[in-house]
């Protein structure tokens, strides 16, 4: 009888001890940083850690501090920490916050744009920590767009939920626009080529040489004074009385387009590029 009573008391005591087991988890930890989980109670148990892209199972001793390494908590988000076994079964939630901003993914569109166009350039920055977690805390972001030889346009924004966005127009000067986004000490650069617009005041002159009638444009520029890119097609048309016509699709080279046409007296010669027409010259046959 006494022996039975003693055994019952021992069971109750152990049960109470087991029920008293608990863990203490910090409210928030930062991704990539290790942490210690305090535990009470005694005996062996199994620790389960389940979170974004993470699943850990480990044998632990209750009553000792349980260490989670930084490498085990790299992914930001909500985790569940559970201890089971030895009559114990409980769990707690843990929030792992993103670490400091370390990396920016920058989408800049388009890669080429004509000058003088409003709201044609868009930049979207996604801010990440070193473990590729989106940094959701508000964060100052600086966008800068500059073309060599022209002043830089600077815009400041705040990243919300890890994303900052800018829409802006192209400038008046053509060139390889350097579109940069900066968060803290980190920056990323993209190239948005600002190109000359349609040719403006297209004009050419003629002179006769031994190889034929040479038609040569003045330097071809857009209305903002930017030279149109080399390689742009300039079509010279020579309407020849009684002989039909001759055409040459000349390419702009070093800012000038040049074509060799047959020297037909009385021919009317004109130039065009795309939908833009230039001047007309009537060739009288003289030098």
């Amino acid at each position, binding site marked *: 009888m006494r022996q039975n009573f003693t055994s019952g008391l021992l069971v109750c005591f152990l049960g109470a001890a087991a029920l008293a087991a608990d863990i203490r988890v910090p409210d928030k930890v930062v991704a990539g940083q290790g942490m210690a989980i305090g535990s009470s109670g005694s005996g062996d148990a199994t620790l389960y850690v389940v979170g974004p892209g993470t699943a850990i199972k480990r044998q632990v001793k209750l009553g000792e501090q349980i260490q989670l390494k930084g490498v085990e908590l790299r992914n930001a988000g909500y985790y569940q920490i559970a201890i089971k076994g030895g009559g114990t079964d409980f769990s707690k939630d843990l929030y792992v916050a993103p670490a400091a901003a370390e*990396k920016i*993914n*920058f*989408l*800049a*569109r*388009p*890669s*080429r744009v004509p000058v003088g166009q409003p709201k044609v350039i868009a930049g979207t920055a*996604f801010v990440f920590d070193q473990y590729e977690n989106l940094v959701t805390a508000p964060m100052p972001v600086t966008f800068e767009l500059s073309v060599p030889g022209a002043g830089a346009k600077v815009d400041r924004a705040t990243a919300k939920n890890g994303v900052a966005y800018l829409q802006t127009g192209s400038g008046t000067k053509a060139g390889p626009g350097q579109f940069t986004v900066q968060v803290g000490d980190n920056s990323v650069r*993209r190239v948005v*080529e600002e*190109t*000359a617009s349609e040719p403006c005041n297209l004009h050419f002159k003629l002179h006769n040489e031994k*190889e034929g009638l040479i038609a040569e444009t003045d330097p071809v520029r857009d209305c903002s004074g930017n030279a*149109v*890119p*080399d*390689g*742009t*097609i300039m079509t010279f048309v020579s309407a*020849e009385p009684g*002989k*039909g*016509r*001759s*055409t*040459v*699709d*000349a*390419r702009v*080279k070093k800012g000038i387009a040049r*074509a*060799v*046409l*047959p020297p037909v007296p009385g021919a009317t010669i004109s130039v065009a*590029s*795309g939908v833009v027409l230039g001047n007309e010259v009537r060739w009288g046959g003289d030098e």
Partner: protein
Amino acid sequence: MSRLVAIIMAVITGVLIAAGVAPTREKEKTSSPEGAVRAFYDRVRADDYRGAYVLIAPSSNVDFATVHRDIAGRDGSLKTLSQLQNADARVIANHGNEALVRANLEWRTAVGALFENKDLKLVNDNGNWQIVWPKHHEQNLPPQVIPVNYLRWDIIHSDSEANEWGAQNVESPHVRITSMNAVESEGKVIILGELVNEDTVPGYVDVQGILIGKDGERLGEETSFDKISHVLLPKEVTPFRIDFDGVHLNQVKKVTLNPNSILVPASADPVIGVLHQQLDKTDSGHTVLKGELMNQSGQLVNIPQVLATYYDNAGKVIWISDGYVDQALRPQVPIPFAVSVNDDIAPKVHSYRVVVNHYTMDRTS
């Protein structure tokens, strides 16, 4: 023994008959002007150029290499990739000892059939007609260096292994269809139009056309294939033509055109001038657009293709025709071309525009 002698005699008789007949057949071939021309081109078709050369009159004063070059082409031209398929001969004039014969030739080429008419003068030499091979006075440039400093466009693509997410590639060029017209001709629906590269970089372009029927069914899907100038430099305009065989215009409710463009490395040369273009009539009364191509660069162009766009008086594209030129374009040497114009369309043509596609072999860049 007597049987053996009989067999031997029979064989000898057969050989002698064959030997006697062979020259007679050759003689039959060259005993008429058209027969001589046919015999000549039969040998060309069999790649027996030496045999064909025998049928040329010595008075032509032309060497074998010249004749071979005239017939089989040179400089990697379309003719060098051709095989004579059919040859027909018709006497145009016969003045006893002299005759003029028109040879209608059909060549099988890498880009389809090529038709050629050649007027040949023949002389009678003791009953044998011989061809007086026409001498071509080819313009030859004196040896020289032509400095070429046209630009090229090269592209640095995004390195997918090294680049992070979000790093953009360079965009394809922006192209736009500036005009479109649908016509029915030769038992098919033909979509005609023009496409412009509005960008500052070159592009490889193509146009896909889809015909939708009255009940929303798909009547056909085709691309412009070789009826377009595929590589477009900045601000360059190309015609395009898409043929839908076996479809009638009254079946079509809607036409969908999808222009595609890809950014490609390209070169701004060669420049090819299209000189003295004019509409003309052939002997048979058909309309052709004739002119000359002039390669203004220093590089040989092996196979030129002429694409002609015809407009009505409202500026609408009413027809597009094309033709391959069977001669290579040597630098600074004008080469004639002619492309046919649909006879139904010809009276409506108010203006036209010609562009030249070019194919160059062994390009170093």
